[in-house]
């Protein structure tokens, strides 16, 4: 039994908030998520009760902070099924992908090596690789899609077509269309060809059980703020031997054993060698509280509930004649749509005027127009606290339609 009412009570943003003078309906959860009181309280406690730096002092407060940071590292490791030393704290998914690009790819790729991506990738899983290509002479190639999806077969074909694929990097779940890839199958193909497989988990880790060891991928990246945690913190999960072999990216305090005037630097072992400078300690502590919160509901229950919401929304949306849905077959809480003849941004503005928050545009996946036949979509995305009533308000407003200019003349 999914206890939605109890869950919703734990979010201050779900407590009588309004937008445009009407109750807020937040359907932009693929972008970011609301925070429960437990996360806010954990952050507040760090600032109110035990502020100190980590691994920098010999006093009790500092020891406590050290223990807290390590505790969160363990929580993440348990959540994703990795070893604790395979968890690197980053500022988010984007920094984690950049860390792989600059720490691994820059020193391992050479001219004419290939990085395999898809046209559905977010900018964060595209632009770091473009930069590595500029620096090394490697090339980006795009896997062919099968009915808008990345399949194991198409990845196999890509390995036959392109020599020297050294890195494959895909989103586990597309942030525009919500399609989940067969990460385990693709990892196997990549490894058969001695390539590494990077899994961008920004849209999967918050929603579906993502098991690092079982999937046997080389890296997983994700952000806390998309899973009820604070902004500015995320994680890179990497196989330990790969992390150890990776070059340094950010350098500074906290990542080295010692350094000397002849420029000899002895870095700490992974994961610490990547964590230069003071970490986002409050963020990390909030991240830990977010994982506790998700565990208290259960990631499988969350996924099940989101699928129920998506089915409910789709069955209602199918009755709207002028709404085109681009991902009806997606098993996720993401619905990408347009109203016939209406520009996505205009539809989103109209919904804003009704208190409904949705995203419009390309959602940072700026090559998506090569995959679906439109320059922009409206995206509604659900999370563990979305209610069927939210969906009713959303769909009823879509059915009512109204002129897009109503938003300006109400």
């Amino acid at each position, binding site marked *: 039994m999914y206890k939605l009412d109890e869950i919703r009570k734990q979010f201050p943003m779900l407590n009588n908030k309004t937008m445009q003078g009407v109750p807020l309906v937040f359907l932009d959860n693929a972008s970011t998520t609301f925070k429960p009181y437990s996360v806010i309280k954990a952050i507040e406690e760090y600032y109110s009760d035990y502020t100190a730096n980590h691994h920098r002092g010999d006093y009790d407060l500092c020891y406590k902070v050290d223990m807290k940071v390590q505790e969160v590292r363990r929580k993440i490791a348990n959540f994703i099924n990795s070893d604790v030393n395979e968890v690197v704290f980053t500022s988010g998914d984007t920094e984690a992908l950049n860390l792989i690009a600059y720490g691994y790819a820059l020193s391992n790729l050479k001219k004419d090596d290939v990085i395999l991506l898809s046209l559905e990738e977010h900018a964060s899983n595209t632009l770091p690789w473009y930069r590595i290509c500029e620096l090394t002479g490697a090339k980006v190639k795009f896997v062919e899609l099968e009915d808008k999806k990345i399949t194991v077969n198409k990845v196999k074909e890509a390995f036959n077509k392109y020599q020297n694929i050294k890195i494959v990097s895909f989103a586990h779940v597309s942030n525009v269309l919500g399609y989940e890839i067969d990460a385990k199958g693709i990892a196997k193909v990549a490894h058969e060809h001695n390539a590494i497989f990077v899994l961008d988990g920004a849209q999967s880790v918050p929603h579906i059980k993502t098991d690092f060891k079982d999937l046997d991928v080389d890296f997983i990246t994700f952000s806390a703020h998309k899973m009820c945690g604070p902004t500015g913190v995320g994680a890179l999960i990497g196989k330990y031997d790969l992390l150890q072999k990776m070059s340094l990216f950010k350098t500074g305090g906290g990542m080295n054993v010692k350094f000397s005037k002849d420029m000899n630097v002895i870095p700490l072992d992974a994961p610490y060698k990547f964590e230069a400078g003071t970490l986002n300690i409050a963020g990390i502590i909030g991240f830990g509280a977010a994982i506790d919160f998700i565990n208290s509901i259960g990631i499988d229950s969350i996924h099940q509930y989101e699928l129920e919401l998506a089915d409910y929304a789709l069955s209602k949306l199918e009755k709207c004649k002028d709404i085109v849905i681009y991902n009806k077959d997606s098993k996720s809480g993401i619905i990408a749509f347009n109203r016939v003849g209406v520009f996505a941004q205009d539809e989103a503005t109209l919904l804003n005027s009704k208190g409904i928050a949705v995203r419009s545009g390309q959602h940072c996946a700026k090559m998506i127009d090569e995959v679906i036949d439109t320059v922009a979509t409206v995206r509604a995305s659900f999370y563990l606290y979305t209610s069927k009533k939210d969906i009713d308000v959303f769909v009823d407003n879509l059915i009512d339609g109204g002129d897009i200019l109503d938003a300006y003349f*109400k």
Partner: protein
Amino acid sequence: MPILSNDMMRSIIMDHSSNPMNKHLPNGEGYDKVHMHSDNCIDDLDIYFKVEGDKITDACFEGVACTISLSSTDIMCDLIKGKTKKEAEYMIEQYQKMMHEEDFDADVLEDAIVFINTSKQAARIRCATIGWNAASQLLEDKK
């Protein structure tokens, strides 16, 4: 201040977005161009001015944009044609004041008054000003 009912304002916006007369490439030589894009909308426009002596003798644009960007840019082109640089600058200044709910001189804005409600949808102010910012930039480049 021109008195326009809401219905009139809506129909002016719809006319300019469904049939933007100034949305075409320049006919002939002597045009300056500025490219504008929005980071929060799909708007991606090229705006062209022909400036002869002190006057803007022609204005047009091409690209992809939402209803508010299309119509506001089309109306800007209509209004700016035939104006001196100084008159154009004054008009742009009044438009920007209107966008940000400051006191403004409505007399010079003519049909552009229809965007007076944009501040109700604050996320779209950038759409309603994209063509007008381009105009400022084109005039600035001519100084």
